[in-house]
């Protein structure tokens, strides 16, 4: 039942802020609202009960194993939430002058420095609100750099075919054309193909390393050389930085500009879709173009870096400071980890992934890159299963839900047929991984013997398999009074 169906006119007690008597506006009638909007009229208990019950219909990290590849669903420490909600932190207005308290700015400055160190870049801006906005900012900086050099013929961004969809989309938002680079059979970039397209029209290349194929791009130095020699810049999509934290740094690999997904590597909550935080880092030559605001420190005081201090900035990306409360959570998490803790993320996420890959391999599943080391994630392809048993990856994924496991990422990256991208993360136990192997083995048996059980899954969730096609064809994106639900 929808909250609207529980609504009855005149129920709401206006208890929260009290009622106002006979409001009298000095605003001409024509600008005033004609009739109430039709927000729900429910009691506080009804709202609490409704949303509490709704929440129980979700899978989440706090309730389920959630090995969603590329998304890094690991434990979100509760301390980060509790502390980010301290009254002094939540009540601070974004335009509070620095001389009325430096606590927030000190945290942000520390965070900039920590991120600079773990990425090996020269400077960090925390402004972007998520990975995709970081990508936009990064590519915009590439453009600003070339423009500043009067190098205005560069109109192409190279993107491997394994890249996340945001990469090409961001490049286009910056006015670039996108050229796809194929991947070779080992999961590395096809170097010949790269060499054949790189040239004076190349503004840069966007790479994830480890790539979304769950392997480390071994020729990264060569790629950097090729692109740099052609006058292009290297963009690092940091969605997978957790795999190499404290082991190898994008700055040292030759990247000129990067973004980080703090909601992945630094474990801020995904919140059913966000918010995230996508700080960008740059090498020395791109520093003049960083997005604002940033925090500076002169040894005594923290202050804001705005267009006044950085006139060549690509500008602002949001009205204030990106997702400040998420940055705060990342800061708290980073402080708890410290140097060793960061390296351990890479170590144990990699250990878990390789262990799980080995176990699934032994269990007869087909690995997309059997001869490669897994990074923090790896790919299983169900091509053969789909062909021989008529049970595809989506069916497999849905059936996992019945076993209380959130499905891994399906059908991404696009170049691997019938794939599952599996990222267990470092916060899961060996027992959980072992259980997961058993679940996959069971489903494989079911696919063989009782395929309907799998193709009709899930059977135990609040709803059975949903009709996505109908959702598009009979578009219903807002409830109308009287409609049944």
């Amino acid at each position, binding site marked *: 039942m929808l909250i609207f169906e529980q609504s009855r006119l005149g129920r709401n007690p206006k208890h929260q802020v009290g009622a106002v008597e006979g409001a009298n506006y000095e605003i001409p009638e024509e*600008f005033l609202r004609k009739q109430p909007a039709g927000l729900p*009229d429910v009691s506080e208990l009804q709202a609490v009960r409704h949303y509490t019950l709704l*929440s*129980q219909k979700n899978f989440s990290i706090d309730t389920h194993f959630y090995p969603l590849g590329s998304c890094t669903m690991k434990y979100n420490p509760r301390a980060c939430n509790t502390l980010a909600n301290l009254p002094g932190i939540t009540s601070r207005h974004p*335009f509070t002058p620095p001389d009325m308290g430096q*606590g927030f700015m000190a945290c942000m400055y520390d965070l900039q420095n920590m991120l600079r160190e773990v990425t090996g870049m020269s400077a960090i801006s925390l402004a972007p609100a998520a990975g995709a906005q970081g990508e936009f900012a990064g590519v915009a900086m590439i453009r600003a750099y070339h423009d500043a050099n009067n190098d205005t013929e560069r109109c192409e961004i190279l993107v491997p075919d394994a890249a996340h969809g945001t990469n090409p989309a961001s490049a286009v938002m910056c006015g670039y054309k996108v050229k796809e680079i194929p991947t070779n059979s080992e999961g590395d970039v096809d170097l010949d193909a790269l060499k054949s397209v790189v040239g004076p029209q190349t503004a840069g290349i966007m790479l994830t390393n480890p790539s979304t194929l769950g392997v480390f791009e071994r020729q990264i130095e060569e790629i950097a050389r090729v692109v740099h020699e052609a006058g292009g810049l290297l963009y690092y999509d940091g969605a997978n930085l957790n795999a190499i934290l404290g082991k190898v740094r994008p700055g040292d690999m030759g990247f000129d500009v990067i973004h980080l997904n703090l909601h992945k590597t630094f474990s801020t909550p995904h919140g059913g879709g966000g*918010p995230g935080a996508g700080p960008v880092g740059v090498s020395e030559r791109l520093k003049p173009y960083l997005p604002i605001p940033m925090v500076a420190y002169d040894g005594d005081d923290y202050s804001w870096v705005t267009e006044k201090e950085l006139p060549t900035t690509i500008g602002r990306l*949001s009205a204030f400071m990106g997702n400040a409360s998420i940055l705060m959570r990342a800061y708290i998490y980073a402080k708890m980890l410290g140097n060793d803790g960061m390296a351990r993320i890479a170590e144990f996420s990699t250990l878990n992934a390789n262990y799980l890959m080995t176990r699934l391999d032994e269990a007869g599943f087909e690995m997309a890159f059997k001869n490669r080391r897994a990074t923090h994630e790896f790919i299983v392809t169900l091509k053969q299963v789909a062909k021989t048993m008529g049970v595809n990856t989506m069916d497999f994924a849905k059936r996992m839900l019945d076993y209380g496991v959130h499905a891994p990422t399906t059908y991404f990256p696009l170049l691997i047929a019938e794939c599952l991208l599996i990222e267990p993360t470092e916060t899961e136990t060996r027992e959980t991984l072992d259980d997961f192997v058993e679940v996959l083995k069971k489903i494989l048996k079911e696919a063989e013997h009782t395929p309907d059980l799998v193709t009709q899954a899930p059977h135990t969730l609040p709803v059975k398999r949903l009709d996505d096609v109908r*959702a598009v064809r009979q578009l219903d994106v807002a409830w109308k009074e009287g409609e049944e639900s």
Partner: protein
Amino acid sequence: MPFIPHTTDDIEHMLKTIGVADINALFDEIPESLRCPPLDIAAGLSEQEIVRLMHERANEDGQTLNFAGAGAYEHHIPAAIWEVTTRGEFYSAYTPYQAEASQGTLQLLYEFQTMMTRLTGMDVSNASLYDGASALAEAVLMSVRANRKSKSKVILMPTSLHPHYRAVVKTIVTQQGITMQDIDYDPATGTTDLDKLMAHAGEDIAAVVIPQPNFFGGIEPVNEMVNWAHENKALAIAVVNPMSLGVLNAPGDWGQTGADIVCGEGQPLGIPLASGGAYLGFLCCQQSYVRQMPGRIIGKTVDLDGKPGYTLTLQAREQHIRRSKATSNICTNQGLMVTAATIYMSIMGDAGVNSAATQSYQNTHQLVASMTDIPGVERVFDSPFFHEAVIKLPSSAARYLRSMGAHNILAGISLEQWYPELKDCVLVCATETKNQADLEKYMSHMGRLFDAPLACQLRPSF
């Protein structure tokens, strides 16, 4: 090891299964030359230590009596909202890709979309963008795609719009060859100078941006502006404060046919100030433009048994399907903030939102009346205003704000940094969270600063 559950036994067993000697061996595909030395970062703190540190930092920033607005508003936030929003099942879930395992989030988002369409008077809402400013940038991009009658990529943008919104739009859309044409405000009213707008009649214009209330708190002539836009084949993009829609007309009802696209900042709906984020950008539009909409959209459908359920829909617009041809690059959005805003609107209802909006209106009007009783202090513009107003002081605004700040009062925002012509001017806001004692405190400190003993008295409320 913080957050890592492996025992020594586990590690040994797992390494053996994999067939390597130690964890380091798992990184053997990384060229040795690239491996970095130990990070120059301090050792980790225990939770107990970070608790102390954060309490100290939070206490340092203290609790200011806040009369600032300018795009971020301190409203009362019912306690139930965040107690429910931070439940693990909402807090620690991902984007609802597996619809059957995410009906909680999906139904909530569908309810949010419904509430936003009702509040704005539009047909369709997405499930959030980053913030109000970037939502406007997306609205501008969308209008260029959607307005098939225009080839120009020209957007008319009033200077009475939040300067940071204008800056963000510039950052984001100019990369695609879109040009923004400023429309100055009328120095008397502080609202868009209609003559200046109308001077563009007959030009090829993709869209007109219409803020309501505008950055100065003023009520814009939105009906005329929408009508003018449509007469000139431009789309009308409304930028509204959702709280104000408890009192002000829904953009869907502006002018003859209503705005085409409505966007804005959802922060007033139950989201704390928190230094500027995470907030939530919303974007609504009329049905005909839905396929140009950026961001996630949730649709209702049925399951195998015909039972209703909710799922991501129209994904073919999005980057993960359409890649370089997507309507936007946005992926992660502001889900948790949407959760809070949805619960906020449920608990407050029409009556609650109206009451918060009206009290904000009343408090600001009372404060402005009292302030302008002080000789030399006056309102700059004469148009009706909602819950913010521009006040001219007899002397430096920066000095004034510093003096009030010494008493822990954030007395407003200096406007000179964005509008040199508004020297010595502050933008003030008093929401429903301010009681009579707060207003009196403001006035008594202000009165003392300007040697206006009589003015120390707060004007009686009306």
